[in-house]
């Protein structure tokens, strides 16, 4: 990590330029971003409500219904001025290509027919061919409407004071706002003081949804400003105001570009997702920023007059070196959680998953590339800024308070937070799963008031369709089917929410009455199918072919019963749909299919699926967080503990929704998914910081207090900024979705951050889990053992010549060839042990052979276990006068591959030994110094120090210095240390169980060697078994032929 970061800082201009290019490239992808505005196009078409809706739409043309109500302020609707208005509005709607002509209904529409009986049979005439002007004609119209009960409350209200125009529209470019605009344009010329005109219906509200979602255009910059201001408050520097926002904005831009690149559609349900990405990205940026100021402060205090630019660059490196790996983990956890949503069927959820996952990864990449590069170029903080950032503030006092609570009053924390979470979660019992698209908007806005008015005066603005499929032609003429339909209508009309139902039945009843001298007792269905057929034939003589298009199909196989509802509440709609199902079972013939669907049920389907999948997706994200954190920390306890703040946030969220009467629907279900995604980071940062501080501080209390002061404080900044950013949504007046989201996200952030700073650490202090505390134990034990010693597989030995003092170079030479036997065979066990003490074991067999006449070795290592690497072989051939040759054979690839060998610092097959350590560091490449002589483990040793003779030797080996305690008898380095290029201790080596393996040539071999990377805490122990020297190993073994053989 350090080397990578050094590279970034060194090539900062190129990195910034590269970021610029990538950003441009991704921004260019925005042109491929496809925005979906039709909500049900996002739905799986297999949902029964949607599938039925599609049939209804295709067969009957019913799709998006708009209702226009006209109420005169004086008198009834039967006035020429009112009827003229109705006629003109109807005409304008009919003229618009988006309207479905056959489904436009009003007093003046040709579809509204007056059915009367006469001597010849039946007369069917348009209800109002032209607007009546005389009182007689007006009365005749009123009587005609009243004689046709099918139109009561549908065309004219019972009190005669309102009439309505029902129009249906197709999907058009421009979305629902365009449909709303068409209707408003049609109505506009008729608005005057004599009438009230109300417009309602689903498209009006969907148009409003589009319009309000566009508020993101100004809410987003305000959110940016608020997040920036909170960061400024926290750090009091301009960098803190700007840099996290730069990361956040670029992350949003990148993720949108990636969405375009992947050709994933964008939809209105994701319109607030950019704020989520903004919040997460800024959150990570703050964690690093906080650490940067801490590191800079330390350097500054140590050397107030030092080079500020250099100190700043060093602080950039150190901060990222410490926080970078944590951020990789946190972002991986979050992005995996989000990406896991890609398996969902709903496009909107997939988009949410990809968009957010890409945003998190973008933030990670930017924080590891662009930001350090940029920060290394910016002016370092001045003394005042450093002082201000370091000075105690309200944030410190709050985090200290939390630390005291978690460390000293765990019982109280459990009782208090437990009770609070429990009580608040109990609100969940009052939680309603309820969706009303109209309920997305505040009740007092004009559109809601219009809708309420129309629902109180007329049948209702929310259509509910029931499809009757008789499977055969003329099935809808069968009396048993018609009777069942009539019964269904009566059943539906029992509901107080149903203002009216209409179907073919109403017209047949009217025809029967008309053909029986308009006698009331004949307002009933004919009992004979032939009679039905004859009625319809008679009707067709004077009616128009398309009159029944919205009630029955051309072959009389399928029909539809339409109910007009006064609400679009999902609870009411679902109850009605169930009622239909129940009624059907007992009353419809078995060969007839009856299904509810389409209309307002489309919204119910959307809600049903979205909620179910959102809840599943919360579980999935929780699962992903658990699995990944368990894997990363290698501890199930860690996985469970990280979930504590998240579960608390979700439980309280649902509870608060119940208590405040906020329904669980699409938007509010999304909040919990967002809260889980953001909240996981807090616990991860805290855990890592606790672990890190415990590693470096002997005083446990101080270590944990420092973790609180750093990662804990940053958690507070982040949660406050996220809550503040989302709080902006509460400015979206009239739009309940934004109001609820703003409120609920703030609650979720409060709960997850407070739980992370109280309950989570209290549990850690009580349980003392291994993933935090074992590290410390291991570290202490390692320090006690203190097994250093420069050791390399190869080296050392040769006997010291008694009496003659050796120079440092001579010691190094003897050490270099101490274990170089003519050839050898051995079995080895590699134990790779990580900082938590977990172990991986590799077993190998190996052979070596010196190239005749040289000290260059050839080495073949064959892996025997574990199973997944069995058969892997490496062949190393040293060349004193040039680069060595290295080949690897991977059984899965079935071929030999030559590797670049100049990088001696590369890890040897994943161990803590580098290739250089294995091959041996050439004596002539280093300057050697004899520091002293001392006893180590009871043996006399030379203590030497070696530094690179040339800069490239350091670069290639990765070491700026090596020290060793070289045994005077065997010349094996019993202990050693190696320092990285920044001069920090990198590795410690040890050699144990030294055995003489070649008496004649005085060659020795340590049977156990160890290398520990002190910067990562990882170490490797290699034990040799069955070691045999000088057995006559064939040269043929060290060829590609051997590598490819079994």
């Amino acid at each position, binding site marked *: 990590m350090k080397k990578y970061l050094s590279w970034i800082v060194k090539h900062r201009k190129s990195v910034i330029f590269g970021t610029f290019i990538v950003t441009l490239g991704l921004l260019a992808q925005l042109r491929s971003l496809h925005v979906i505005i039709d909500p049900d196009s996002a739905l799986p078409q297999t949902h029964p409500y949607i599938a039925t809706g599609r049939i209804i739409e295709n067969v009957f043309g019913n799709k998006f219904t708009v209702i226009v109500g006209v109420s005169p302020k004086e008198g009834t609707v039967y006035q020429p001025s009112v009827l003229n208005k109705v006629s003109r509005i109807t005409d304008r709607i009919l003229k618009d290509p988006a309207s479905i002509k056959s489904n436009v209904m009003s007093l003046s529409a040709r579809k509204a027919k007056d059915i009367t009986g006469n001597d010849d049979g039946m007369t069917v005439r348009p209800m109002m061919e032209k607007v009546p002007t005389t009182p007689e004609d007006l009365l005749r119209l009123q009587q005609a409407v009243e004689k046709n009960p099918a139109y009561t409350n549908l065309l004219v209200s019972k009190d005669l004071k309102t009439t309505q125009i029902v129009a249906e529209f197709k999907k058009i470019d421009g979305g629902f706002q365009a449909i709303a605009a068409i209707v408003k344009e049609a109505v506009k010329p008729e608005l005057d003081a004599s009438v009230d005109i109300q417009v309602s219906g689903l498209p009006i509200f969907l148009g409003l949804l589009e319009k309000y979602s566009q508020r993101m255009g100004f809410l987003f910059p305000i959110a940016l400003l608020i997040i920036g201001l909170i960061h400024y408050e926290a750090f009091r520097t301009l960098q803190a105001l700007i840099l996290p926002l730069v990361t956040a904005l670029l992350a949003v831009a990148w993720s949108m570009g990636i969405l375009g690149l992947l050709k994933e559609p964008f939809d209105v349900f994701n319109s607030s997702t950019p704020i989520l990405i903004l919040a997460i990205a800024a959150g990570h940026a703050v964690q690093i920023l906080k650490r940067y100021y801490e590191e800079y402060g330390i350097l500054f205090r140590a050397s107030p007059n030092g080079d500020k630019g250099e100190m700043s660059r060093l602080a950039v490196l150190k901060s990222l070196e410490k926080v970078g790996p944590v951020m990789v983990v946190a972002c991986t956890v979050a992005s995996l959680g989000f990406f896991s949503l890609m*398996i969902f069927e709903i496009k909107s959820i997939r988009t949410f998953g990809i968009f957010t996952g890409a945003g998190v990864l973008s933030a990670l990449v930017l924080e590891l590339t662009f930001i350090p590069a940029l920060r290394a170029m910016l002016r370092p903080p001045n003394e005042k800024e450093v002082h201000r950032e370091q000075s105690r503030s309200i944030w410190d006092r709050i985090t200290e308070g939390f630390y005291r609570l978690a460390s000293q009053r765990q019982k109280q924390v459990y009782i208090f937070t437990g009770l609070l979470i429990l009580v608040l979660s109990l609100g969940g019992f009052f939680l309603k799963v309820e969706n009303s698209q109209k309920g997305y908007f505040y009740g007092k806005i004009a559109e809601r008031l219009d809708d309420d008015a129309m629902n109180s005066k007329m049948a209702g603005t929310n259509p509910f369709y029931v499809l009757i499929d008789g499977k055969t032609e003329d099935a809808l003429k069968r009396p048993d089917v018609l009777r069942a339909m009539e019964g269904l209508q009566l059943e539906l009309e029992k509901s107080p929410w149903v203002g009216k139902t209409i179907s073919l039945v109403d017209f047949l009843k009217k025809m029967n009455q008309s053909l029986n001298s308009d006698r009331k007792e004949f307002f009933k269905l004919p009992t004979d199918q032939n009679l039905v057929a004859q009625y319809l034939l008679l009707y067709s003589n004077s009616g128009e072919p398309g009159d029944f298009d919205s009630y029955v199909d051309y072959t009389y196989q399928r029909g539809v019963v339409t109910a007009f509802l006064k609400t679009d509440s999902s609870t009411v709609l679902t109850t009605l749909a169930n009622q239909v199902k129940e009624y059907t079972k007992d009353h419809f013939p078995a060969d007839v299919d009856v299904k509810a669907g389409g209309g307002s049920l489309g919204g119910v389907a959307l809600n049903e699926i979205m909620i179910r999948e959102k809840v599943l997706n919360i579980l999935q994200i929780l699962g992903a967080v658990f699995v990944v954190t368990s894997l990363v920390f290698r501890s199930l306890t860690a996985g469970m503990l990280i979930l504590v703040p998240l579960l608390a946030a979700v439980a309280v969220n649902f509870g608060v929704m119940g208590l405040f009467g906020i329904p669980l629907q699409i938007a509010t279900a999304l909040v919990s998914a967002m809260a889980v995604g953001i909240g996981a980071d807090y616990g991860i940062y805290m855990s890592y910081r606790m672990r890190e501080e415990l590693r470096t501080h002997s005083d446990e209390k101080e270590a944990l207090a420092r973790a609180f002061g750093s990662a804990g404080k940053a958690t507070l900044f982040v949660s406050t900024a996220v809550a503040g950013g989302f709080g902006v949504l509460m400015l979206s007046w009239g739009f309940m979705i934004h109001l609820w989201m703003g409120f609920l996200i703030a609650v979720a952030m409060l709960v997850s951050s407070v739980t992370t700073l109280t309950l989570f650490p209290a549990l850690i202090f009580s349980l003392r889990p291994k993933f935090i505390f074992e590290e410390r134990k291991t570290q202490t034990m390692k320090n006690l053992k203190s097994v250093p010693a420069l050791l390399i597989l190869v080296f050392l030995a040769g006997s010291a010549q008694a009496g003659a003092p050796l120079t440092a170079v001579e010691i190094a030479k003897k050490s270099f060839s101490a274990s170089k036997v003519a050839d050898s065979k051995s079995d080895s066990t590699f134990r790779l042990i990580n900082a938590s003490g977990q172990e991986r074991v590799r077993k190998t067999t190996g052979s070596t052979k010196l190239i005749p006449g040289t000290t260059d070795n050839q080495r073949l290592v064959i892996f025997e276990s574990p*199973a997944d690497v069995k058969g892997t072989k490496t062949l190393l051939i040293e060349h004193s006068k040039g*680069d060595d040759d290295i080949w690897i054979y991977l059984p899965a690839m*079935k071929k*030999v591959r*030559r590797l670049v060998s100049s990088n001696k610092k590369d*890890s040897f097959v994943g161990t803590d030994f580098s290739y250089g350590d294995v091959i041996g560091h050439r004596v002539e490449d280093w300057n050697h110094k004899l520091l002293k002589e001392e006893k180590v483990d009871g043996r006399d040793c030379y203590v030497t120090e070696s530094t690179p003779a040339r800069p490239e030797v350091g670069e290639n080996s990765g070491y700026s210095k090596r020290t060793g305690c070289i045994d005077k008898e065997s010349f094996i380095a019993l202990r050693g240390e190696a320092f990285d290029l920044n001069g920090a201790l990198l590795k410690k080596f040890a050699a144990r169980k030294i055995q003489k393996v070649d008496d004649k040539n005085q060659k020795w071999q340590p049977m156990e060697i160890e290398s520990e990377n002190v910067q990562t805490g990882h170490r490797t122990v290699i034990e040799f078994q069955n070691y045999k020297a000088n057995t006559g190993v064939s040269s043929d073994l060290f060829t*590609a032929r051997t590598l490819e053989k079994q």
Partner: protein
Amino acid sequence: MISLRHVRLKSSNWLIVGAIAFAALAALSVQASEEGAPSPILEKLGPSISLRGAFWDRDKSYSSRRGYLASSAWLTLRPKEVLSSKLFFDGYLAKNDTIGSPKYFAEAREAYLERSMGSLDLRIGRQVIVWGRGDKVNPTDQWSSKNFTLLTTDDEDSRLGAGALNLALNLDRYRLIAIWQPEWRMPNYPIPPISGISLSYVDPGKAAYRQFGLKLDQTGGDFDGSLSFFNGPSRTPNLSVLSAGPTGVNVGLNFETVQVYGGDIAFNLGSYGFRAEAAYTASADSAGTDPLKFNPEFYGVLGADRTLFENLNLNFQFLYKHVFKFQNVREIADPNTQSMAVQQNLISNQLRNNQLGISFRPSYKFFNETLEVEAAYVQWFYNPGGLLRPKATYAVNDHLKAIAGGEVYFGQRDSFFGRLQDVSSVFTELRYSF
């Protein structure tokens, strides 16, 4: 026991013969080793078993369905040496759709005997032969067919072994390799469905018996390199109309004989490893006049790799393809012929006279190779399209690995990779090996 659902009977015969021979020698080997230190029989067979459970977002069938639970069990046997010979077996039982479909793949990928006689090495039996020093893109790699529809997180696992006699004469660092591979394994491609067109894989028949090749290879010294020749049916099919009727057209995928003359080289310069590989393929349509046969081509790969920050390996290659006697099939007047010719060009990736592309494969090993992250990226310019295959492998312990990644095909629909967009998928796998 050893059967293969998706190959022909002829292969099964090979398998039966191979299985019997393998079983006999394995028994001998067990017996031989029993004379030494006593240990369980199973252990003497040197088994390695890998059990894998994976989730794939999409399979390769172009179905609209999402979510497949793929599972497989892999067995490798490396019995002790017997009669100076070594045996090797590698096979698997795999299901792409563990829950939803009874279809499975039972595959004996390799079952061979290996013996050295002085400078001569002999390998006989079913084996996977891979040629080429290019990184992932190998123009000289002609021997093994692939089952591209198998849901596997390692692309090399899709290779199908074939019965062959492989002789290598070793002269110091030089090797002269001669191969005769009389068994034909039918490849399996994810081809996008086209309405009214059904596909049939056509057996190359006796041409399969004429699969042979020679290679002069040198490994060691300042560079590794080889010159090679292959004769046999190409793994890239030519299209032909087998039948046409009111229900649609049946198109045959014919694997016609090609000759491939190739070479490769790999060497290091300072911190860079360079590699190059090239091949000239003489195809059945040497005149380039038949639009339903791919043309002769030269295909070259040139690239370098470098390791940075100890564990970050970057591997970059230029790809170049020259199609001899290329004709623009869009100019064909007959729409049916044109449509098939376009498909032919797409399948054989012969879309222009000169084609340029790149491959890039960064890989990073974290935490002492506990976590390995890799992204293989290939892109062709002009008719742009490419493949991105990111993968992260996390070793939970010595036995359990968690793998996550994806296969993203992108680009124009009329490009080699772009046409495969609908089989892009993400995957995760848990792999238990012991």
